[in-house]
């Protein structure tokens, strides 16, 4: 899976981010860049700052939200 470093940063910083529950955090490597009200704002800022370098946009949830897909579909390997 890609973005493992960014995911580790998210998990380690989650206690500091919990006041922003439901908002969207932008993470690059081990750096939390900022928190945004909408996904749209976060993804725009990610591309504006980091262009095509890896970055993570994730909605902040103290308890991780699980996405349910009832159809037969498999999580897939990275497409690159």
């Amino acid at each position: 899976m890609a973005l493992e470093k960014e995911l580790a940063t998210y998990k380690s910083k989650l206690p500091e981010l919990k006041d922003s529950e439901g908002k969207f955090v932008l993470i690059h490597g081990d750096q939390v860049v900022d928190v945004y009200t909408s996904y749209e704002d976060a993804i725009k800022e990610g591309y504006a700052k980091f262009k095509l370098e890896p970055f993570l946009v994730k909605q902040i949830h103290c308890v991780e939200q699980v996405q349910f897909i009832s159809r037969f579909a498999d999580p897939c390997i990275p497409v690159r």
Partner: protein
Amino acid sequence: MPYFNLQLTPNQGLVANAIIAVSHARRVALTALQQPVPNAISVRLLVDTGASHTCIDPSVLQSLGLTPTGIATVNTPTTGTQPQNQDQYDISLLIPGSHPTHFPLVVPNIPVICAQFLQAQGFHGLLGRDVLSRCILIYNGPAGMFTVAY
């Protein structure tokens, strides 16, 4: 309120044709870097109230040259009891209205989950409740039609 009104397909039910492209944000970045913007792709999406999130087959995402910008925790019939982390990709989505004067359903920046085996089932993705939450969905079984208003 614009809408699209489509026939139910005998085997698959609620299937809509859509156009998927790189997200608006990624398009701006590619253009600034003077890199080519991949062509948009026509796809078939199953309107799926059983999917909490929109999912796209990896073949489509690969054609758009995308890299992940998110991670979702996903539970499907194949993951068993243990949800799995899965890459998310940002795309733009357009579904035409029923009439040329209708505005299409457009989402310029939306995260989607990469999910395999969808193309083998006759479509390229699932239009999930993250998009449907902005819409009114009417399933008219006797008429063999469904309507999505947005």
